């Protein structure tokens, strides 16, 4: 039998065309991704601007109340304002988290937004604590310190969100990511409460380190408040 071929064909043109089409689709996807990421940043920025206004509003209300001491009926107004602001803060957290999950490129914008979110939380916590003392509000605020590298922190998060769901607006949880760098006030708070382990909770100036489980946290909450269901 005669054999003709001892070499096989290559289809270089086809490989090239396939490569070009693949790259094209990839580029379309990539640029759309960049556009959407920018939109996302814009929308979070818009959200934080609204918060800024809310916060200034709240501080003004608080200052004003301080001036006209004794008019306790205004406290109800303050309480409502505080609750709605904190709720908005919570919404913005879920936006930040969603952004973290969906974005393909983590930009400086994202880090800036995270820092700003952290600062907002600390400011709200300040206002909440002062308002509580002044108006004798039946609210409880929890500072929740966590860090990126901590494996058990999500567990504490789950328990906290359980009680947040249970007590609603009376329980204010301020999550603070301790791994965010270069924030002076965060360092100060960490130093003041001597927090080195994560997760840690600060409730009415008392520090609780390590994961506080469901029953323990319930006990703490009940000790600090006289809420129903305790």
């Amino acid at each position, binding site marked *: 039998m005669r054999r003709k071929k001892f070499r096989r064909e290559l289809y270089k043109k086809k490989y090239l065309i396939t*490569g070009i089409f693949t790259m094209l689709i990839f580029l379309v996807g990539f640029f759309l991704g960049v556009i959407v990421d920018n939109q996302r940043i814009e929308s979070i920025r818009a959200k934080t601007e609204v918060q800024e206004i809310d916060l200034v509003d709240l501080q003004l209300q608080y200052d004003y109340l301080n001036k006209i001491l004794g008019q306790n009926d205004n406290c109800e107004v303050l309480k409502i304002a505080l609750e709605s602001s904190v709720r908005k803060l919570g919404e913005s957290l879920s936006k930040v988290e969603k952004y973290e999950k969906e974005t393909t490129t983590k930009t400086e914008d994202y880090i800036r937004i995270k820092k700003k979110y952290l600062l907002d939380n600390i400011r709200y916590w300040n206002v909440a604590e002062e308002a509580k003392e002044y108006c004798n509000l039946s609210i409880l605020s929890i500072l929740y310190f966590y860090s990126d590298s901590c494996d058990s922190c999500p567990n504490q998060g789950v328990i906290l969100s359980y009680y947040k769901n249970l007590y609603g607006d009376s329980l204010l949880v301020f999550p603070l990511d301790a791994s965010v760098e270069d924030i002076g006030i965060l360092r100060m708070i960490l130093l003041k409460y001597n927090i080195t382990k994560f997760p840690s909770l600060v409730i009415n100036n008392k520090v609780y380190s390590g994961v506080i489980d469901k029953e323990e946290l319930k006990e703490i909450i009940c000790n600090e408040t006289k809420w129903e269901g305790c």
Partner: protein
Amino acid sequence: MNRVDLIVWIAYFISLYIAIFWLINVLEIKKSRKIIKIKSWPSVSIIIPAYNEEKHIKDCIESVLNLDYENSKIKIIVVNDGSKDKTKEVVEEIISKKKGREIILINQKNSGKAKALNNALKLVKTEFFACLDADSFVSKKALKRIIKTFYEYDNNLAIVTPAMKIRNPKNLLQKLQYVEYNISMLLHRLMSNLNSIYVAPGPFSVYKTEIVKKLGGFDSTTLAEDQEIAYRMQKNFYDIKQSPNAFVYTTPPNNFKSLYRQRRRWYIGGFSNIIKYRKMFLNPKYGHFGIVQMPFNLLNFIMAFIGVFLIIYYILMPILRFVKNIFIIKFDVYPYLKTFFSQKIKLSLTIIDLNAFRTVIILFLLVISLIMLFFAFKNADEKIKRKSITLLLVLYFFVYYAVLSFVCVISILEFLILRKRRW
């Protein structure tokens, strides 16, 4: 960008490249075939290796006897591979009834399909021989079409493969395989055009006797002798072509356990053949087969590993996390329900919630898959049943593939561990 994202990007790129490559080849299919008149059809031996096939062997032999082909030019050799059931008796009965036809029965100790084929090959004196799994059935015109294909090409053509179909799929698992076989039939046609077929399926591949004998028959040391013989042909620069209309019907596994066993054999066999013929891998001497087809075959395995990893990372781990959270709150989901119902639930699927990059790639992959599917059914001469096809396709793309990926990964890991231990 973290490491998982990088894996996802690479997986998308590879999938997209392979999908577009096949699509380009589909759009290139030409129908023009040479019209060939054959005055004297050649004799063909048909080897039927059978192990415990009492249920199917009668239909199988009868489909061969009913082939549209000159009766005296068909010689049937049934090899009973030490069956424990009544295969032998069934065949003997057929032989006694069909006295005018040439049917030989060889009984051997159970020693596998490759040895059965080699034993039968010793008796083959015809120019061509076919191998037909005992659970498969040939359509009337299959043999003539395959022989015609031999005459369309030159002496280099060693194997012509059939167009394999599933005979009336009954349960869901068989219906999924029905979709799979239709797609695979189209891919084989494309590989045939590119001269890169890497498997000669057990159901009715037809060989040129002289070439197979020259290359030493079938390899009894591999789990997939059907792939091994094809790789060996490619290595020796012989051609393998598919005869697109030569329909052969096979009986697919009807439960998961036997599907698992079949695929395990395919995956381990396929993987060990890539290792055995690694010198052809990316070797320009072997053209498209070495540079593209073999890497594609290897990528199938790699993609299965990536797929399994992603399924675990994106589906199983979140489920585990969810279960763990339920444990942390001690199954007390009441507060969640309370807030769930009291709040206005905002169903806001905004642009914010969308990963545009991923969406674009997945959309393209889906569209290409659907186009390929349309051509595959057209090519297989099968009608698309509108009512049931949607659910079938969803299951096919999102469940069947995932399950097969797991089977592949488990098989390959088993293979690698056993191989290491043996050394």
